[in-house]
């Protein structure tokens, strides 16, 4: 390892040593383990009993099926809540971001194509940029049979120099499917080139990164790094690529995912969340600020609440169950339009409560600190917040 790596190792170790570790008795971990083993054994007995009953023709009514979740047991009650609006079920879910997953050969061809386009823009004389080949790595984002983003790191050399630089390209469906794009407050918006919708620039650690959002839904991020850290310890003197050149290259419509990108719903805005909170909660919303991007907001009223809106592309609401949340208490709510799951929980530490609704398009949750949601007006208000259909509908950003 390099001297720097040793420094990082030592620094991380020092940092970790500063963490105060709770004095949890071993007996508590043992007790949890015993309970889990007992649940697993009971599940096996229950399944066997069902099988035996079926064979000898005993009637049904055996209650809940085997516990398959690794979470603590969930007390699942099904109740009808008249406060829950029924319009949520009318919204049709859309496929998740990206395209159906191409095979390996197609993915290689895609990346070769991306490199050719970049060469055209950034290395027309062919002096610097390595062609994409079998020795190159590949990064991708996706799942559930879909490819939401793909890219590669390409070597960059300068004649007469021994160092190795890197140009990284990543093409995705939307910003959320980018591999490593992370502004951390250091990005700046710039005029978008050509017919692009948006463009951002991020400079850090000697690296120049640009991201361009095209009107067709693709986002292309190019990262120009004088050092290809994977493959070299010697940087090049520079790539000689300015912001404008990278932006123009990223805006080229040719690098794309193979197939039609189904438009994804735009993210819920802070204004939409605030509108719902102010209507559903008793009293004004006195503070609303984003904690991490646009997904989480804070309201400080009689209790501190955090509202999160989290997209669950490609996942049906019916797939989400109370044990998914690994929480102690959970209640399923039936609405007029169908079954919607609202999880009401208490975190094991800190006494916080969580109300979650997985709708057809988004998962909305409200976490509460400093107040109980076992009963009472606040509980009803927050149930109304998470199931409000306005948080399942979308408008342009």
């Amino acid at each position, binding site marked *: 390892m390099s001297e*720097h*790596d040793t420094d*990082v*190792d*030592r*620094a*991380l*170790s*020092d*940092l*970790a*040593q*500063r*963490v*105060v*570790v*709770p004095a*949890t008795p*071993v007996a508590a*971990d*043992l007790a*949890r*383990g015993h309970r*889990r*083993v007992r649940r697993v054994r009971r599940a096996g007995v229950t399944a066997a009993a069902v099988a035996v009953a079926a064979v000898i023709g005993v009637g049904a009514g055996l209650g809940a099926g085997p516990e398959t979740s*690794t979470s603590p047991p969930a007390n699942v009650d099904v109740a009808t809540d008249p406060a829950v609006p029924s319009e949520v079920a009318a919204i049709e879910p859309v496929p998740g971001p990206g395209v159906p997953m191409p095979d390996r050969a197609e993915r290689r061809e895609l990346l070769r194509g991306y490199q050719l386009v970049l060469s055209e823009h950034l290395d027309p004389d062919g002096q610097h940029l390595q062609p994409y080949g079998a020795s190159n*790595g*590949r*990064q991708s984002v996706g799942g559930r049979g879909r490819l939401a983003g793909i890219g590669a*790191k390409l070597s960059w050399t300068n004649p007469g120099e021994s160092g190795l630089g890197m140009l990284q390209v990543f093409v995705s469906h939307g910003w959320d499917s980018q591999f*490593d794009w*992370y*502004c*951390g407050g250091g990005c700046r918006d710039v005029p978008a080139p050509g017919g692009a919708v948006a463009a951002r620039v*991020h400079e*850090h*650690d000697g*690296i120049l990164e640009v991201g361009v959002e095209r009107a067709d839904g693709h986002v292309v991020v190019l990262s120009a790094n004088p050092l290809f*850290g*994977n493959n070299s310890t010697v940087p090049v003197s520079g790539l000689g690529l300015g912001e404008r050149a990278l932006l123009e290259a990223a805006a080229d419509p040719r690098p794309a995912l193979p197939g039609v990108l189904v438009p994804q719903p735009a993210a819920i805005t802070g204004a939409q969340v605030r509108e719902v909170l102010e209507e559903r909660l008793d009293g004004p919303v006195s503070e609303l600020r984003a*904690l*991490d991007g646009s997904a*989480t907001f804070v309201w400080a009223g009689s209790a501190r609440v955090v509202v*999160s*809106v*989290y997209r669950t592309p490609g996942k049906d609401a019916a797939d989400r169950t109370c044990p998914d*949340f*690994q929480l102690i208490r959970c209640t399923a709510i039936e609405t007029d339009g169908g079954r919607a799951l609202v999880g009401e929980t208490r*975190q*094991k*530490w*800190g006494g*916080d409560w*969580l109300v*979650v609704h997985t709708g057809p398009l988004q*998962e*909305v*949750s409200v*976490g509460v*600190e400093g107040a109980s949601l076992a009963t009472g007006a606040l509980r009803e208000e927050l149930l109304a917040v998470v199931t409000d259909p306005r948080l399942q509908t979308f408008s342009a950003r």
Partner: protein
Amino acid sequence: MRTPRDAGRDRAFAVYVVERRAQLYRTAYLLCGDPHLAEDVVQTALTRLYAAWPRVVRADSVDAYVRRVVVNSHLDDVRRPWRRERPAPDADLDRPAPVGLSSEDADELWSALRRLAPGQRRVVVLRHYWGLSVDETAADLGISTGTVKSQTADALARLRAALAPMNGEHP
């Protein structure tokens, strides 16, 4: 009725917990930055470990098993919408380390660690806190060794910048 085998499992598990719990908690804390979530993650991991103990011990991979559960538990929680941005209580950061970081450096490093993308944070904690090899890290996370290397390189660059003296610029 508990058998001698059950008692043996309990003893062995208890020894492991005493030896490793602190490191597991610190790992979880480095990954998620939240003491409550870190404790939840460790409890989940140890509960699963206990249930799988006979199989895991036979495979002689107890550390690997529980470490993977910690990382995957963190992954599960990162995907859930409930993420609290709660800074660690001052006591967690002001406790003096025997050697090494000043409080200011520790703050810088915490900030840099939090700013890493989740994938980079996992890789750097496994490689540079647990000291795992590239192959071991790849196996723990279910990713390619190439991805481990690229994630490591990017993450280290950011962390080194935080550790560099007189370099106050942050992305």
